[in-house]
């Protein structure tokens, strides 16, 4: 039996950020949904499960503050990653998450390939849907954070801005939350886990490594680039520790189940959503 070779795809800090955002986002989603549907039995049940309206509200606030601080730390991390000497390649290069022309080409190639034209796009390190998800979260965080803080301290905020901004803030907070939940629990889950080789749980984000064979199919341009630069030997890693694997499988299944429960119940109860 030959051993499979693994390639390191995510560093420890990437995985830590991901686990952090999974935990805080789940907290925000569950507590937030309990407010959104508080007039229905779903909201009541969720609220009761988490210890009543006030406790849920407290949890939501704590989660929000944690999320904002995590986001600020993430921005510091991003700034530390910018290489000032080769500014152009470090921002618009293939290792960066900033969308570039190649993504548009990949997207059009992929859409054409759905209709039988052309071949599949050769994707580099980050696919365009991953970039879309990342920037979706990146712009959603400040929006949710700022409106959330406004709603947290209405009296303080209203010593400066007129009260109708709170109406708009509440609307934006809800709408953005619904957008985030539906994007993450439908599309992000789909891209992450609903492929023949990965179903039902994609380990890459937890173990940080992917099999080389798999990677050659999914990210051919990246593997090519690594081989050309001779960096591929540096990124080779061993198989993940089985005990760690058990741990993250439990965590991953729990998160998936939680997400699916929320999105299915949310769609079921969506007729009660009022955006006012």
């Amino acid at each position, binding site marked *: 039996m030959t051993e499979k070779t693994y390639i390191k795809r995510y560093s420890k800090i990437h995985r830590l950020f991901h686990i952090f955002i999974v935990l805080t986002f789940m907290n925000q989603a569950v507590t937030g949904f309990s407010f959104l549907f*508080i*007039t229905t039995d779903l909201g009541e049940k969720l609220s009761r499960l988490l210890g009543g309206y006030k406790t849920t509200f407290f949890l939501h606030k704590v989660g929000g503050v944690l999320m904002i601080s995590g986001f600020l730390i993430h921005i510091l991390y991003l700034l530390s990653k910018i290489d000032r000497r080769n500014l152009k390649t470090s921002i618009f290069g293939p290792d960066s998450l900033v969308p570039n022309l190649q993504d548009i080409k990949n997207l059009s190639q*992929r*859409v054409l*390939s*759905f*209709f*039988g*034209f052309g*071949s599949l796009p050769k994707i580099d390190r980050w696919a365009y*849907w991953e970039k879309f998800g990342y920037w*979706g979260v990146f712009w959603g965080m400040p929006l949710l954070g700022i409106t959330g803080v406004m709603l947290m301290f*209405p*009296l303080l905020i*209203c*010593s*400066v*801005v*007129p*009260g*109708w901004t*709170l*109406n*708009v803030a509440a*609307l*934006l907070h809800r*709408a*953005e939350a*619904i*957008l985030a939940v*539906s*994007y993450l629990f*439908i*599309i992000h889950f*789909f*891209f992450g886990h*609903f*492929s*023949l080789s990965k179903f039902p749980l994609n380990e890459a984000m937890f173990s940080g490594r992917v099999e080389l064979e798999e990677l050659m*199919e999914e990210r051919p341009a990246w593997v090519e680039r690594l081989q050309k630069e001779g960096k591929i030997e540096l990124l080779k890693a061993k198989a993940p520790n089985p005990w760690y694997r058990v741990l993250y499988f439990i965590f991953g299944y729990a998160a998936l189940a939680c997400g699916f429960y929320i999105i299915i119940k949310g769609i079921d109860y969506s007729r009660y959503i*009022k*955006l*006012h």
Partner: protein
Amino acid sequence: MKKAFIKKSRTVYFVFGIGLLIGLAVLVMYLPDPGRSQEEVVSPYITRLRERVRTGYQEGYEVKPRMSVGYDLMKGGYYEGNEVRPIKRTRDEFKAPGVLRDLFPVSSTGAEVRIRSHLPDAHAGIKFYQQSTCTECHSRQARSFHTDRAGINCRQCHGAEPIPAIKHYYSPMNPIRRHAYVCATCHEGANDLFAQYIIHEPAPGALTTKESFPVFFYANWFMVLLLLGTMAFFIPHSLMMFLQELAMKKGKTGIDILFPLIPHRFKATLRKRFPKKKAPEK
């Protein structure tokens, strides 16, 4: 080379810094005055206050009615000297002409409603008033977070009978003192700016909201279109990707699995035009 780069970046930072300061100054100029929680106010906006001083124009609710005596809301009458007189005997500030004479009480222009909003008793002269509920007429005002979430009823804010119109000078609901008399009963320290929160929010998607609360309207439609656009693009995209993967595994091109309903001849021409690709070797 390096020095020039540093020099250049310094000028860039300098320009950005100055720009930021100017932007902040402009923002501060256009912000309203800091809110006041216990005072009577006319308008929190400096610009509007200046305009009022310049033109001498004031809204009806800002002007005391023509009487030299106080008005007791609790007892529902006027004080004239030591004597309390019922509302009916005194002259109203505004008269409501033709109230409820016709089948439909609200006129098409809304003039009667506007006049009613200045009366000491907003519902004076309405037939069967005692037998009806608030939301029978004020159906739009049933939309309220306070009712939905906190279970607050109309009377807890609008007061007992006679309910004074919100723009009557002595009404606790008058924007001059609403924050102190109504909002601050629960939201301790509420100021005039806080009281500008719109309790009876309009339906955000409705076209009438475009006129009454445009920011709300556009914010709502922006978010709704963003959500629909994202879903409309990515759900078919991911489904197609899944089907494509299935097709690849079976060694077929996209045409066979995605378009099973295409007629045979057309399919053949398509295949001639776009020849079948070999399955990826494993």
